[in-house]
């Protein structure tokens, strides 16, 4: 019995409530005429879309840099990759790969600078990450207006300079992953094998990374920086590696997101992108300086499950769409819960 109690204690009351809430939604679905297979398939698609964004938080949490509210920097790198790939006219799979490669280059550069900054402000990372993320989104918005993009599908209709706010990836690499080896059961259950596959592969790579020598060192830096320093680890370099990884994964994540969403959202699109990912990994059980892959899987599944099930169930039952309000309360409630736990690292 006490192992149950221990599991409940460390799993945390709010997490239990959320899991029960989602479970209730899934149970209620058939009774209120909500098509269960469609909802499950919708949830899976969204897990494929957002999974990598949640995964991107793991390196920085492990290295003790805290919750990466500045994930939008990675998203910006991804947007640059996508737009440049479209500008160069790459289409289909090659366009998708080009977008990813370009975005990884930008992600590395942004991550390096961002990591250097965070090393100067050890202890106060989270708030600074938030506002560095916000200001860089705004600088990019100015850049989107000025950068010399020519591709007709992207620039404003009447030939002005500057890119449109949302650019369709229709002709380029829309659903390239979702439709890859897609498993279609019945008319409304679609398993996005491509996206889930990429998410699984990336998670495996992260798992491998944290089994390498450098990964072990990063985990030690997060767990006790003085111990790591006394063992000859160059703490600042390890933190920069973790920030670069987080930013590059963010860049990859947004591109996978866009191929499924079908649109690239520029200007203020990425402003609040970090918060759903942070909420998801916290719902999954991560702490402010400890995150495992199970946290990512459980978190992404729970969070996206709630996001898909709440609107359909509430519409069916109460004829009112409170899903937006519930999403805000649940995700921010989880972040608040994590922030008020007693941890010494990464304010």
């Amino acid at each position, binding site marked *: 019995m006490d192992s149950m109690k221990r599991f409940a204690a460390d799993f945390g009351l709010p997490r239990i409530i959320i899991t029960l809430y989602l479970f209730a939604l899934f149970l209620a679905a058939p009774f209120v005429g909500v098509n269960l297979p469609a909802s499950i398939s919708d949830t899976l698609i969204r897990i494929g*879309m957002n999974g990598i964004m949640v995964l991107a938080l793991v390196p920085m949490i492990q290295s003790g840099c805290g919750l990466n509210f500045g994930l939008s920097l990675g998203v910006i790198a991804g947007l640059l990759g996508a737009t440049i790939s479209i500008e160069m006219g790459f289409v289909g799979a090659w366009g998708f790969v080009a977008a990813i490669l370009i975005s990884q280059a930008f992600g590395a550069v942004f991550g390096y600078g961002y990591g250097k900054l965070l090393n100067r402000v050890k202890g106060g990372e989270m708030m600074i990450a938030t506002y560095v993320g916000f200001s860089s989104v705004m600088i990019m918005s100015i850049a989107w207006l000025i950068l010399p993009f020519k591709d007709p599908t992207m620039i404003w209709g009447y030939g002005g300079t500057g890119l449109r706010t949302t650019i369709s990836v229709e002709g380029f690499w829309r659903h390239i992953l979702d439709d890859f080896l897609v498993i279609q059961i019945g008319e409304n259950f679609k398993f996005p094998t491509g996206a889930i596959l990429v998410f699984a592969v990336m998670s495996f790579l992260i798992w491998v990374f944290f089994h390498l020598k450098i990964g072990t060192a990063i985990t030690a830096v997060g767990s006790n920086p003085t111990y790591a320093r006394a063992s000859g680890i160059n703490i600042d370099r390890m933190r920069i590696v973790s920030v670069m990884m987080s930013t590059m994964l963010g860049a990859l994540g947004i591109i996978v997101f866009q191929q499924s969403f079908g*649109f690239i959202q520029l200007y203020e699109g990425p402003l*609040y992108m970090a918060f759903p990912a942070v*909420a998801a990994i916290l719902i999954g059980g991560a702490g402010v300086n400890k995150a495992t892959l199970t946290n990512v899987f459980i978190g992404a599944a729970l969070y996206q499950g709630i996001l898909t099930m709440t609107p359909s169930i509430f519409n069916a039952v109460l004829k009112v769409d409170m899903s937006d309000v519930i999403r*805000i309360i649940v995700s921010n409630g989880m972040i608040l819960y994590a922030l008020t736990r007693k941890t010494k690292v990464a304010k």
Partner: protein
Amino acid sequence: MTSRSLFQRSCVLLGFIALSVYLFYIGKGHTLLIDTNAVTINGKELRSPETIEVSIDGKPAESMGRAERILILAGGPRHTITIEVLSGDDKKVEKQFTIPTFMDSAVVSVPAILGDAPPEFWVTTFTAPPVEEAPAEQMQHEQDAPEATTEISPNATAPGQQKP
């Protein structure tokens, strides 16, 4: 000390409650419908002069013909109405009247005031006649902006530009 401070604190609390009630009382807004239709009081039929200028609580005056009705918003229970008769013996009348707090809209009869009818006839509560007039007025206020939570991004279900 505690009994004294308890007493003082309850005084402050009561003070706040009293102040709120007072503010509610003197701040309550009313819609006044200034009416120049003829009206018969105690058997005497009173008619309003050809053209007059009416102003409430010193606000800019508005000219009115016979059998017209204009709408003025005013706050508080006590009001002064100044009526200046332009046609004929240009008499100027200034009268005080009060409106009960919970009477949202009230009809103020100019002929009753000019004809020195007893004060209780000056103001009558406005009962919205069933059909023809109410909707018209209703339409004018209807600014039902679009639903608060509709998404502007093309694909509504996916979390596009969402607040956290």
